[in-house]
């Protein structure tokens, strides 16, 4: 099984699922104000304070985050799972399930976030200065909620 086959059968779908289910929540606070954003290694989406169920989406970090997740999944799958399992019939079933989970997660999150989306190129928290305090923690679940 070639690297490209592993990528297409497993890594892409596993990366997509992981991206939408397991992420990092960043809380930026400065004095009396704070904002939350989601994404790893870079924050790529955040509930917007402009309107109900509105989200700000940073396109650059979003693309990098997806590539990062797929890359990490590819390395883990290539190193940790024997080729014999990957190319077996059971492996194909797992591949289908992973694609269903990945695409399903993407569709559901896209639907929720697209209620009132706003796209920016890179920075979600430009209001806060570099002196702002940042805290990070893992966030498990499909899609962020309002602030």
């Amino acid at each position: 099984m070639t690297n490209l086959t592993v990528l297409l059968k497993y890594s892409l779908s596993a990366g997509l699922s992981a991206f939408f289910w397991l992420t990092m929540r960043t809380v930026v606070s400065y004095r009396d104000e704070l904002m939350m954003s989601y994404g790893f290694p870079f924050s790529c989406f955040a509930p917007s304070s402009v309107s109900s169920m509105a989200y700000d989406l940073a396109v650059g970090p979003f693309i990098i985050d997806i590539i990062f997740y797929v890359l990490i999944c590819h390395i883990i799958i290539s190193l940790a799972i024997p080729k014999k399992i990957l190319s077996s019939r059971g492996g194909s079933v797992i591949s289908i399930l992973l694609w269903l989970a990945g695409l399903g997660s993407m569709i559901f999150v896209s639907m929720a976030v697209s209620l009132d989306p706003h796209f920016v190129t890179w920075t979600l928290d430009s209001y806060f200065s570099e002196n702002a305090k940042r805290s990070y923690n893992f966030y498990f679940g499909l899609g962020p909620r309002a602030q």
Partner: protein
Amino acid sequence: MTTFTYSLSGGTYIIEGTGSVQMIMLVRSRKEYFTDFIEREVKVKGLKVVVNGSFIDLSFASSIAVRLRDAALDASESMPLGEVIQDGKLLAGTSSTGKFNFSQVTCGKKFSAGLGNPSSSSCSAVGGIAPIIIDGLPYGAQNVYKAGVPIGAPPIGDVDAKFKPFLTQKSNAMFATLLSRGGTVGKTSVGYSNIKQKLFILSQANGLSGFDANGIRTIFVGNNVNNAVFLDCSDSSTLYYDGKFLVRPGVDKNEFLTVAVGFK
């Protein structure tokens, strides 16, 4: 005697209310579109002006349901953020201490605004919203100080007591975010001038060119408004005036918005 007048300036509808204007909070309790709810309440309560009110949160499942179905969401699935008070009773919403409120403490009298939850004894009030002017102090994307301010005054955020006498504009993250969206994002705001004893209701449809957040603030400042706030903006913006909708909410928002602010 209450009088409302209407004008359109730079894509923004400006309603001015004088006399004993009464603010009435409306909370949807049926499974119906927000605009249908407003039309029904206008008739029942004899309202002249209605705008959208609180921010609304939805569960992940409800937000997907809004996208999938072309039907109003059950009112119980919409969760207002910030307290909604009418006649001293909490009608809906949650505590929202870090945000602002707009309230009419005594029915038919002046309006005020402040940080945190509204007074629980208010005649009517809405919380969880963004500031424009609070007790005469304008808000913006940054703190602005008069000349002579001591070194170390923070550019954003809370201001220590020693800097406060120099503060001419207070920063606010919600205001800054709205400002960054420019003039085309929908906006709904209300303000009150103690000097003129006049209520101002401003509304602009989402997607049309209009004033940015600073421009809206300029209108309020120019009218000697003491307290003004932004309500839920973007395509939540809704304005009903004198028998018809001048600004309608987006299709999806119309399915789940729940809190409206009426005036008569």
